[in-house]
């Protein structure tokens, strides 16, 4: 297990190096951040001077080496727009995104498991057909469209839910701005989490359903039926547990993707998390914040995947055996 873990961590480091290199290469060819910092009247020479001061005129290898050296010290550069270290900006924005992802994941878990199981057990029932049909609509509807529709129905027409932002937040542990502990904050969370879950939820329902249907055909389930075990026990204890493994694997990967998907959701809801921060940094060519975000998300992806692999190793020993070789 130890060797397996070390190997996964080494892989993670290599992946991070590659991500940072690609991110940095994009930054280098992306455009001039100084444009967004100055008015139209500032001359080309003056802009060149500012670029010089920011170290943007140095050759690519020099800039990259400087970036790596600083990154090892935990310094991912300075956000030009926020006039603060990029890491500080990202960490300040992270709680908003993580809470959103957490709530969306919660919706997905709570809904997809019962719906997936039911439509696997009763594939021909009217309700299952309805769920399956709905899931196709869900998958094919873009997130921003879902989001806009939600806003128009629940904010503009019905006045039930607030249309933008995070509402009232509470400061936890001195740095975690949380919207989970106020009524206003929770109300603000409802539509963004639904919108964010709208892509993944149908996927998980379909995944659970198909895995479950496969398991229901296996010998040991048939044996369980033959033994006369109560139906709910067969379904939940015997069958559903075995559908869990692939669901966990996919779930781990999808969790990472969901962090990335927040970009659209956050932009529409003016949700002040890392996603909208990233889009805005692209728009105003705040290139060092852009790279810092890519590296940060890279770390999240790699950590989640590593973590999932290790858990997988715990749950399914054959993986561990493979890792030992």
């Amino acid at each position: 297990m130890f060797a397996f873990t070390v190997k996964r961590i080494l892989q993670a480091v290599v992946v991070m190096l590659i991500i940072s290199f690609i991110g940095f290469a994009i930054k280098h060819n992306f455009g001039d951040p100084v444009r967004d910092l100055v008015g139209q009247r500032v001359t080309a020479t003056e802009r060149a001077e500012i670029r010089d001061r920011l170290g943007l005129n140095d050759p690519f290898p020099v800039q990259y080496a400087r970036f790596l050296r600083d990154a090892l010290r935990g310094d991912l550069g300075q956000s030009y727009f926020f006039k603060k270290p990029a890491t500080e900006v990202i960490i300040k924005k992270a709680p908003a995104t993580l809470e959103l992802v957490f709530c969306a994941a919660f919706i997905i878990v709570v809904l997809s498991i019962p719906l997936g199981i039911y439509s696997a057990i009763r594939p021909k029932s009217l309700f299952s057909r309805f769920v399956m049909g709905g899931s196709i609509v869900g998958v094919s509807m873009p997130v921003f469209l879902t989001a806009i529709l939600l806003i128009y129905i629940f904010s503009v027409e019905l006045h039930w839910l607030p249309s933008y932002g995070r509402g009232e937040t509470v400061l936890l542990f001195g740095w975690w701005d949380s919207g989970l502990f106020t009524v206003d904050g929770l109300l603000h969370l409802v539509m963004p989490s639904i919108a964010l879950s709208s892509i993944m939820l149908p996927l998980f329902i379909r995944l659970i359903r198909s895995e479950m249907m496969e398991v229901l055909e296996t010998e040991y389930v048939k044996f369980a039926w033959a033994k006369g075990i109560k139906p709910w026990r067969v379904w939940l204890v015997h069958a559903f547990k075995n559908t869990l493994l692939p669901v966990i694997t996919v779930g781990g990967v999808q969790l990472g993707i969901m962090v990335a998907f927040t970009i659209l959701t956050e932009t529409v809801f003016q949700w002040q998390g890392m996603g909208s921060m990233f889009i805005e940094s692209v728009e105003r060519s705040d290139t060092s914040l852009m790279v810092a975000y890519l590296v940060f998300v890279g770390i999240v992806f790699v950590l989640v995947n590593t973590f999932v692999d290790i858990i997988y190793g715990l749950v399914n020993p054959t993986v561990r055996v493979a890792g030992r070789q």
Partner: protein
Amino acid sequence: MKVSTFKAAGKFSLLVLSLLVAALMLVGCGGEEKKEAAEKAAPAAPEKITLKLAMDADPVSLDPHVQLSGGMLQFSHLVFDPLIRYDKDMNFVPRLAESWERIDDLTMRMHLRKGVKFHSGNEFTAKDVVFTVDRLKKSEDYKGLFEPFTGAVAVDDYTVDLVTKKPYGLVLNMATYIFPLDSKFYSGTDDKGKAKDAIVKTDYSFANVNESGTGPFTVISREQGVKTVFARFKDYWNKDTGNVEEIVLSPIKNDATRTAALMSGDVDFVMPVPPQDLERLKTTDGLHLVTMSGSRIISMQLNQKRNPALADPKVRLAMAYAYDNQGVVEKIMNGFATAAGQMSPKGYVGHLESLTPRFDLEKAKALMAESNFPNGFEATMISPNNRYVNDEKIAEAFASMMSKIGIKVSLKTMPKAQYWDQFDAQVADIQLIGWHSDTEDSGNFFEFLSMCRNTETGYGQYNSGNYCNAKVDELTLAAQTETDPAKRAADLQEAEKIQYDEAGFIPLHWQNLSWASKANMNTEDIVNVMNFPYFGDLVIN
């Protein structure tokens, strides 16, 4: 063994689930209790008049000199107060300067208002004006504008002279950019040992996070990009003005969300209104839409150095006749723009009523036939796709209109982050540019967009068409040192006419401005063509 592991996993997940449910229930109860407590704690306090304001961006800093942009000037009119400002018809009206007089060709004397206080409590005097002009001359963004000035000289505590190096016709225009800073507040060093008056673009500075102006509002709290809260300054010199006591400014970048926020009542005032929502907001009860023709000109520059065909004046004229300004304004801009035949919008001194858009396809074809390129030619073109309203669609329409007179345009569009480098490098024959005159004067258009390119003086810096006419240069430069408004206007109008006749570039339209609010306020009284709403004067009934 397999089964037992799963059993463990099952128990584990059950445990996690129940913990989650318990936590959520706690959260819900916690929230309820808090709300009740809050209701008890605040027994029917007199209601504060709050304006919830949503804009597409928020000020980048609290330092008014760190960047010259619309957003920063909007902010400056809230927190600081200029010496003079424009009214709705672009006349100068007194603010911190009560009156002004020209002493000689180089000197404009400003008589300052007495009894004005800064947010810090310091008294406002001529010293602060001198300090501010000195600082403006150090700011990267403003030093170009204040280059003609030697500086400000305090005559006594309430009189200050604005002195220029040469006679200069735009002293009053520039005085609208002098938002006096509190010289005592911004002098010395902060607790990090840094100079308080430093102007810093990308890092911490005292002025970036602290303010002391004379404006109607003070900044209570600010979370950049999320929310800024302003409170009315209780010692503001002008008591008989608006009644807003608090402004909560939230940037909402997404167009549809900004509109929805207004329609759902989450905010009271939005700017700008996306063109596709104008009709909807206009017809909604309880809302109030105000629009106005703006002063940002969108134009096509025709590079006569890159493409020999564009050096032929007949070709350029033909192109001007082939472009249907009004058609694009109606079909693509939803009527939300003003078709242009020149650069200066109405209200600017260089504006000539007679220079109207000239769409006439037959005439365009005839001109092409007479030119050196009767069979047409090929040209490349670039345009941004996220900088101006509908920029990409406008560029496409332009290209297709040119095809009708035999000009095959190959168009490439790109985001603004990449566009300006390409624009500077003049990679294409036809390039789109939008321009707003930061002096609110015609001369600025010519200086940057149509004077002969000169890297030493910086004239023609954004003239990627390489249009060059000595007479236009001469008239523009003459206008710079002309202090007689009538003569200045005549010079600038003549320059405008020459460019029109030669079709040095193709003006498309001026972008309109828009604001929408709830109906219970005097929105139309506080907005203006510069797009600096004077929220200090806003009255909410």
